[in-house]
Every structure is written in structure tokens, then in C-alpha cells.
């Protein structure tokens, strides 16, 4: 029986039957967002209005870095005073997480560059007079943390990485590690919180050397 090649495709049938394409996930998200917004307004909560806008069917571009820059301005500081981005990561050995109290994990994790260190770009380090092992301070408007520098090539010049966890240690072993933590310099601010309730492990920081390698 002859079968038109056009009939291989769904579209003619959709048009013929007057149907529209459903985007079930996106439709639901959009609808839930509208409902959530309405409920919150009824209850008098107006602090989630920006976040609720993220319940979009088709996502659009956000000036993500702009949120951080604006947050600095809102805090009354000059963004130029905090020119670096600080992010965090974990070692494969999770040596600052669940394995924090296990000496073996700590030892093998130290084979990886950056463990227990503050990783920054080598050229940036040279520019700031920071050598490998120097003690550096990472400071944001909300706090500061200190650690030893590890200059590497494989990182953006405007970014530092502080591998690790929140810095709250219960085990004596982990307390003695003297690791820096992104937690201390990250602001828990609503303006930097997204619709899932997550902050991002990102902070704008200032960097300076505070001590030599010894």
C-alpha cells in the first residue's frame, strides 16, 4: 500500500487533527510556578518573587555573574575590590568529606595537587608575588579564610579553587589539617539563592599573600 514519505513524520497529522505539541515537563513547571507565585502572594510572602520567575517553560539567559556583582554593590562595596571568583571542589578521595578522619584517605589525596591548598593561576600568582606554599588570605565582605597557595596553569586567571568542605570539624584529626574553606567567604543571601533553594559554591573574593612558605 502506498505510504507517502511525508507521513513518516508526525507533523502533518498534528496539523490535520488540530493538535499542539506538548512539553509536559516545561508546561508543568510553568503551571506550578504560577500557582506557587499566587499562593505565596496570598500568604503575604514577597521575598521569593525573583526566584519564582525561574519557573519558566523555556529557560532564558541570566547574567549569572551579574548576580554576584550586584550583591557586592548591594553590600556597599566596590566589586573591583573583590576581583576573583572562588569556587570549591572535592578530592576524588572525598578526603574532606566523609573520609575526613581517615589518615589513609588524607595521605593519598595529598598526591593530587590542590588538596588542602588554595589553587590559583600561575601567572596571577606571579603577578601577586605569591609562590607555591605561601600563606594567602581569601577575603570576601562576609569573612576570610587562609591557606597555602598552589599555583597551577590549568585554571582561569580570575578564579581560585578551594577544595574542601564546610570547615566544621568534629574529629580531632580533621581539625588539625588547617585547610581553608569556601564556606567562610560565601554569603548566605537570598539574592544569591536560586529557585531550588540552592546557593552556588561561588564567591567574589580578594586575594593577598599573608605569609611565606615556612
Amino acid at each position, binding site marked *: 500500500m502506498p505510504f507517502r514519505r511525508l507521513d513518516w513524520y508526525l507533523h502533518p497529522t498534528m496539523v490535520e487533527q488540530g493538535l499542539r505539541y506538548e512539553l509536559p515537563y516545561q508546561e508543568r513547571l510553568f503551571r506550578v510556578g504560577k500557582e506557587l507565585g499566587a499562593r505565596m502572594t496570598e500568604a503575604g510572602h514577597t521575598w521569593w518573587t525573583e526566584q519564582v520567575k525561574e519557573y519558566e517553560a523555556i529557560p532564558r539567559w541570566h547574567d549569572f555573574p551579574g548576580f554576584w556583582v550586584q550583591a557586592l554593590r548591594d553590600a556597599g562595596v566596590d566589586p573591583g575590590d573583590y576581583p576573583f571568583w572562588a569556587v570549591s571542589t572535592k578530592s576524588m578521595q572525598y578526603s574532606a568529606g566523609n573520609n575526613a578522619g581517615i589518615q589513609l584517605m*588524607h*595521605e593519598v589525596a*595529598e598526591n593530587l595537587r590542590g588538596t588542602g591548598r588554595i589553587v590559583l593561576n600561575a601567572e596571577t600568582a606571579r603577578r601577586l608575588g605569591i*609562590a*607555591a*606554599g605561601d600563606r594567602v588570605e581569601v577575603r570576601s565582605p562576609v569573612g576570610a579564610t587562609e591557606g*597555602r597557595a598552589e599555583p597551577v596553569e590549568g585554571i582561569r586567571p580570575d578564579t581560585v579553587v578551594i577544595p574542601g568542605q564546610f570547615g566544621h570539624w568534629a574529629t580531632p584529626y580533621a581539625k588539625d589539617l588547617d585547610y581553608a574553606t569556601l564556606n567562610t567567604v560565601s554569603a548566605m543571601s537570598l539574592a544569591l539563592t536560586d529557585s531550588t533553594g540552592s546557593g552556588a559554591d561561588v564567591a567574589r573574593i580578594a586575594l593577598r599573600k599573608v605569609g*611565606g*612558605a615556612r
Partner: protein
Amino acid sequence: MTAPPRLTLGHRPRLQPFWDVRAACNFIGGGTGTGLIMVAAGAALVGGPWWPAALVGFACVAFGLGMVFLEIGRPWRAINVFFHPQTSWMTRESVLAMPLFGLGAAALGAGLVLGADSGVAIAALVLAALIAAGFLYCQANILRAVRGVPAWREPALRPAMLATGLAEGAGLFLVVGALASPTPPAWSLWLALLAVAARGAAWSRYHRTLHRAGAPEASLRVLDRMAPWVLGLGHGLPAVLLAMALALPPTMGSAAPSVMAGVAGLLIAAAGWTAKLLLMTRAAATRGFTVPHTPVRGRGTSRPSPAPPGWGL
């Protein structure tokens, strides 16, 4: 500027963690001692006083070996050190130590009992001096065989080690002589002058060659920093003092020549000791790791490590 010691090693050159000041003392005591024994034997052959210098010489070598005994992990198994003369310069050094001290005891004993001009004593001392030369040669080769530390593996270090042993011995001979007599024999001044010139040349050549061949930056930095001191205080100044001592007429009275000679000798010896100490404990960076090709992954490219990381020229 190095990072604080981490639990692990990494791939960059690092300061060797194995031999410390005690091992350096072996090369210091061994070098000075054998040099002094050889110079003392020379003194004996020309009819000059030799006994105190020879005693100090053997004592230096014994001190060095004693320090090694304190350093090794299982000192009570030390006799196992003799088991590998086929290829190990450390075994060969230890093997030579036996006849060295045997002949030394004979020379010193005979000299004490029969007098410093005893033919037996002098013959024993001369034989000991020949063994001492071999002992010094073994020590120089011990360092040469160390592939893990480029600053030691450098072939130009060997003549420098031989030259410094002789120079330190000649220098210490002047110190011992200065304590015994106000008039140092001219030959001992000339010997020290020649020895320090030879050592200066050998040391400078080693330093230059190491730079040309390339070595870990940490090694080069230490050598660069110590070079002016070693050359100035250990070669230039003593050479001036020795020349003055040679130029002064012997009837100049007082002990001026022997003081000058003694000071020169001490500077010569101390410079050698310092250089060896720093070479073994501060300038001894390991070679690190390089790879000739990085793995071909997503981007499909590979490249070599451009140079051993942490090395300089």
C-alpha cells in the same frame, strides 16, 4: 622558596631526605683525613715532622666513618657493608678502610716507639697514603654513582672532590704545623697554594658544567649562593696569606708566617667542609619526573614536558 613538606612527594625535584649531616661528615672527615695522611707521608719522605699530622688524619677518617655508623638504620649489621665489592663503591671504600687503619696503627705505633725517622713507620705511612688515595677515590665515586641527585651525578664533581680532599689535607697540615712550629716549611706552603689553586679550578669547572648541563633549580641556587664565599674566603684569601707567608723572610721573628699559614690552612679546610656540607644537605635536589609524551585524549594532541619541572640551566 619551597612549599612546606607534604606527606607525599610529587613529581618535582625535592631535597633528598636520606643523607644528613652525618653522611656529609663521612665525606668531610674522609676527604680531609686522607688528604692529610697523604701530605703527612710526603712530609715524612722529606724528613719533616709527620706524626701529629698523621694522627689527626687518621682521626678524621675514623670520625667520618663513625658518623656513618651512627646514621645507618641497622648499625649492628654494619659488617654487611663488605658484601658487594663487585659494583658498590661503598663496599670498596669500606674494604680499603681496613688496611688503611691497619697501616695507620703500624705507622703511628712504630713512629711512637721507634721514633719519627723510623723506616718502618715511614714505609707504613707511605703505604697507608696510597690506600688513602684509593679511599678518597672511592668516596668521590660514591657520589658519582648516585643517579637520583643530578648535582652529585655530574662527572665534574669527582675531580672537585679529589682536589678538595687534597687541599683540605694540605690546609690542615699547615694548621697542625702552625701549632708545632713558628716556621712552616716552604714546601708545605707551596703545596697548599697549588692545592687550593687546583681545587678552585676544579670547583669552578664543576659549577659551570652543572649550569651548562642543567640541574634542579634548588641545587643551582645553593651552589650560586655559596660560590663567592667558597671562592673568596676559601681560595682567594688563603692564597694571599700563603703568598705573604712565602714572601716573608724566615728571620722576621715571631710566629707571623706560621699564623698566616695556619689561618690560610683553616680557611682552605673550612671552605671544603662547608661546600661538602651544603652540597650534601642543601644542594642535593632529586631529579623529579618528566614524560616525553602526554597521553592522547579528547583533543587528540600530545606534547612532551618541555623540560624537567623545577630544573634550571
